[in-house]
């Protein structure tokens, strides 16, 4: 697929990973522009609904990143995010989404290099996997007879 640019949605916590992305920018570390950052106050705010919605609306990959274990600004938000992410991995695999498309990491404010490498890695992995498309289009294309209202017997 020529010219395919994956869309990655990244939910980053305000206190660590978002700052890391910011630091990466300030320090002129390069990372792909495919990563669309959404800042949340804490990864504890990250609802599984956000992840499903991103995938349903055309994201090709989703990255969640928060503070290292034990370093959450709100004490336990990153643990909550981790628990949800483990559940999400299982459910996403039942939805046929390859595990490489979803990642949860811990990146502290000073780890600009780590952020740049994680962002690059998920973008390149997803680029190889190809586009997911939107749920709506997928469901329709599986049942063309359904969309076209084709000849119905019965």
């Amino acid at each position, binding site marked *: 697929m020529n010219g395919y640019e994956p869309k990655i949605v990244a939910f980053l916590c305000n206190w660590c990973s978002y700052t890391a992305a910011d630091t990466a920018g300030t320090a002129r570390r390069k990372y792909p522009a495919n990563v669309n950052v959404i800042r949340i106050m804490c990864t504890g705010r990250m609802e599984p609904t956000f992840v499903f*919605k991103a995938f*349903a609306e055309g994201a090709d990959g989703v990255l969640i990143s928060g503070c290292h274990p034990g370093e959450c600004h709100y004490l336990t938000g990153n643990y909550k995010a981790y628990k949800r992410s483990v559940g999400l991995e299982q459910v996403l695999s039942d939805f046929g989404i390859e595990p490489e498309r979803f990642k949860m990491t811990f990146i502290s404010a000073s780890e600009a290099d780590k952020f740049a490498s994680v962002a690059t890695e998920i973008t390149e992995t997803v680029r190889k996997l190809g586009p997911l498309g939107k749920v709506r289009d997928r469901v329709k294309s599986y049942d063309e007879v359904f969309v076209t209202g084709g000849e119905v*017997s019965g």
Partner: protein
Amino acid sequence: MADKLKFAFYWNASCGGCEVAVLDIHEKILDVAAIADILMWPVAMDFKEEDVEALPDQHIDVAFINGGIRNSENKKMSQLLRQKSKYVVAFGACANFGGIPALANFHHKESIFDRVYSETPSTVNPEGVWPQEITEVPEGELSLPTFFNTVYMLAEVVDVDYYLPGCPPPPDLILAAVEAIASGNLPPRGTVIAGEKSVCHSCDRVKEEKKVTGFRRIHEVIPDPERCFLEQGIICAGSVTRDGCGTRCLNVDMPCRGCFGAPEGVIDQGAQLLSTLTTLLDTDDLEEVRSIIGSIPDLSGYLYRFTLSDSLMKRRIVAELKDKEVASH
């Protein structure tokens, strides 16, 4: 009795429980019969598709349609009843959100047929006989409806006026719907005839701190009848399920399974239940989290037991169908 209301009942992909639910109103069924004529009810009466086709448009006052949309016949009959009815009520969890049949959206047509017609241990099918949409016989051509890859909810194929959720809908809500129709005192179009908050709001079990060390299934334990199921490590969907059922399951020591769908404001019931369950775990050991969550049998099935058609993801992406999908973009 020209003033009598005209009702139709129809079943799509369903188990028949919704039909029985209509009779669960017991002797009140006589009141219904007093105010309404039934023009279509495949489970109980002999009217045929042609009889409905012969009716003028909007002749039926209310069509109560249960079941998910599994095949082309379901779709066609729903559209026909929509055309002939003033109001359409999505009756039961399957019509509302896909229901149990929609769990098949974790699979697709080929894999379902494979399973049913060759893989199950009880299947003996050495000649590989599969149902065909068209079969030639000496007398002519026989046809079967087209089996869709995805189970849809009723609102995806026709406009739905009112939603009556539940597996099946409880008698008091059915009666409330019938009475509203009979009195002409109708709620705004699109109303869900049930509560707005979550089942926990009506559940009178004692709720304290929710922290668990693991999950158990209801048949593996004898639950404390006074205490919140979640606090006992038993998966209960009450917190993410619409109220209005009268906590029927909880009253008899069964955890909520989520048949009323999501309460107001919740987009995806399964996602919300996933969020709730995983964060109950009282451990910060990342490996332990992984092993406990990994040990829940059929987690996705639990989460989306009734609402897969109504979820954000809707169905599984199928590698074999993917080429087709990208080509159609």
